[in-house]
């Protein structure tokens, strides 16, 4: 299982890097998962919720996405929340990994939604730009997303373009900001971005009186805590 975890992880990372490179985005942040995140992954995949996460085909597949779909989702979500130095986005927080695990488990009923949505997205991009989404420039990718948001991509039926956009936006936010046990928010990077200290069990009267940023360590997660200042960008 552990060997599979590592290879699956590697697969998703490669897909994300490929997408980022194709889109011309700077891969400025290390993509090797942190020890804490890896530990959480192992915990999850060994836990009761794991059946959907064991993929028989091993290294060349995610828990749900194939290589092309993983690259598309990585590129799409990275435009919804772009990564910049000091400003972690979808790639830096591992949103792709979150969505991949969710579709193999809690959101399994959305597999068809994603398959059809991705096919429609590809049809739209090829009809409009004669290229797949991952090969478009970031500016063109933004045009595509804006068209989906406005419901102006006629290649979509189910899901509608707007539904696909809204769902991708929601799942990007979940991957950025859900506890790291769910596979995203790597090393609490999403929480650090906005300055959320996690599931603190208590705030004191002086915390409530403060007009300053809350920086007291640690950030509290379900399985792990993180020491040090919040370190926002």
């Amino acid at each position, binding site marked *: 299982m552990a060997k599979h975890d590592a290879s699956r992880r590697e697969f998703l990372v490669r897909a994300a890097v490929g997408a980022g490179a194709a889109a011309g985005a700077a891969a400025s942040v290390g993509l090797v998962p942190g020890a804490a995140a890896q530990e959480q992954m192992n915990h999850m995949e060994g836990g009761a919720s794991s059946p959907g996460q064991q993929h028989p085909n091993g290294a060349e597949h995610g828990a749900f996405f194939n290589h092309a779909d993983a690259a598309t989702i990585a590129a799409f979500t990275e435009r919804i*929340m772009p990564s910049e130095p000091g400003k972690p986005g979808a790639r830096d927080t591992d949103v792709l990994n979150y969505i991949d695990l969710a579709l193999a488990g809690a959101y399994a009923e959305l597999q068809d939604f994603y398959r059809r949505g991705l096919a429609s997205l590809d049809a739209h991009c090829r009809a409009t730009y004669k290229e797949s989404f991952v090969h478009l420039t970031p500016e063109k990718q933004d045009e595509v997303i804006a068209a989906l948001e406005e419901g102006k991509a006629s290649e979509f039926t189910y899901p509608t373009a707007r539904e696909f956009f809204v769902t991708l936006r929601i799942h990007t936010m979940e991957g950025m900001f859900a506890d790291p046990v769910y596979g995203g928010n790597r090393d609490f990077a999403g929480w650090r971005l*906005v*300055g959320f200290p996690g599931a603190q069990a208590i705030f004191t009267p002086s915390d*409530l009186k403060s007009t300053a940023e809350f920086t007291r360590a640690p950030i509290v997660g379900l399985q792990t805590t993180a020491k040090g200042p919040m370190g926002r960008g």
Partner: protein
Amino acid sequence: MAIEKTDVVIVGMGAVGGIVAAELGKAGMKVIGLERGPRLSTADFNPHDELRYFQRQDLRPNWKRQPVTWRPNPSATAHPMNVLNYGNQAGGGTVHYGTLSWRMHEDDFRARSHTVERYGASAIPEDSSLADWPVTYADLEPFYDRAEYELGVSGKAGNLQGKKIDGGNVFEAPRQRDYPLPALLDDQSGVLFAEGARKLGYHPFSSPRAIISQPYHDRASCTYCGFCQSFGCHVGAKSSILVTKLPEADATGNFKLLTGTMCYHVKTDNSGRATGVSYYGPDGSDNTIEAEIVILAPFIYDNTRLLLLSKTDKFPNGLANSSGQLGKHVMAHIMAKVFVGFDDRFVNIYMGPSAQKHTIDDFNADNFDHKDAGFIRGAQISIGPADLEAGPIGTAMAMDPPPGTPRWGAAYRDFLAKYFSRYGAINAQTENLAYADQTIDLDPNVKDQHGMPAPRVTYDWRRPNEKARVEFLMQKMEGIGHAMGASKVWRGALSPGVPGAHHEGGTRMGNDPKTSVCNKYGQTWDIPNLFVIGSSTFPSMSGFNPTLTIQALAYMSADAIAKRYKSHPGALV
């Protein structure tokens, strides 16, 4: 295929069920409570997990297994909707609620008469079915008091036996004594809101909440962690039915709770009496409870649904529906929002109890002059996080960016990063009027996991009276935002007609069996041993959260059953 006999069977173990079970158990009656969800404990709510409880709604029914559908009008197709207040465990919605605990104003109980007296009958929209309650504030005051003291509500009196007290709600109806617990500590959003509101001459106060500010009845006090709305309390400081009345009911020795059970039918005989209920057990078994008294206390949809599904030759239009009013006059609050952002300081709104933290009551009910306003009734205005919960997922879902800032991309990322801990949402909880064509019926297309038709809500809040009120309130809230010294003040998007929070109505109470389903005790006019208790009986909704009024009604009904009905079964009115 179990058949059991009992004195009282209660369907739903939430805000009403727990109170009635405890009180009737104390009166020596044998009570069985049916609850479709599990019985959790305080230890289950640690640690807090926003994805699980807020985003995936783990303490609410799964919409795929227990769907409620909504359509804006009869020509639209209904689709499943998310319902904020629906509970799915022993304790019901009080396990995950925001705990706002209001006494309604005196004029809230007679909204129609009061409006006619002050503004004339023409002030009421022609198609509105706004009605007075068959109970007055004075009738209910002792039961409000019991609920506050037995459950544990924190707040500061603003009207003590007629004496107005600064710092409390000076618009509240007179109370006989103060709250049992002092108000919760203010967080920075409350401090800013209070300063801004006072500058404008308004009367801000810390919202009364069923969260204990000091140790009470062997329970630990609030730790201000901020995980309230959508979450169970990890220290048991939230005065949910789970930690208050269910232990009391257990202690009577007369109470049995059946979890994982789904009531699907109320049984009646040819004499017109209720004889019990049928339910599916957790193993799918089909079971019967025979009871002298049947009390329905689920969320509002399930009252109408059960009564419709239980129709017989004697009651062909559903039980308790000789008036034809069953399923009508459905109401819901909507939340109109104005956001405030601060560049020069942090607000850290994720600290402290999360929902509707600080309030002004100046624009609620008829607390201000509506002459020439173009609408009647008002709203409670409060400060809090965008979706009554302040984690980053909820904020990304509900904090609309200001005009000119997109909802995605680098500019959105930077907006969220900057304002997540520097913002607040001013929120107007509007008293939307009752209209007869706002209904609950049985969805012909969507079924639940048991094969029962889903309850279908037909509702659209966007009526002239309601839209005019929202515009008025938006302007007031923008004024408060500027008075708070915010760097940015902007309006949130309005919902597309969908009912917001606190759905009420469907089994309206009244004084007349021809125009209402039940009397003030929730006793149905048609079947005297069948009671419906909860916000489905509300004739009007007020701008306040309904739970404390629901609980006061539950105490009043339990009192009448124990003191009068038990010895003399029959009509209580």
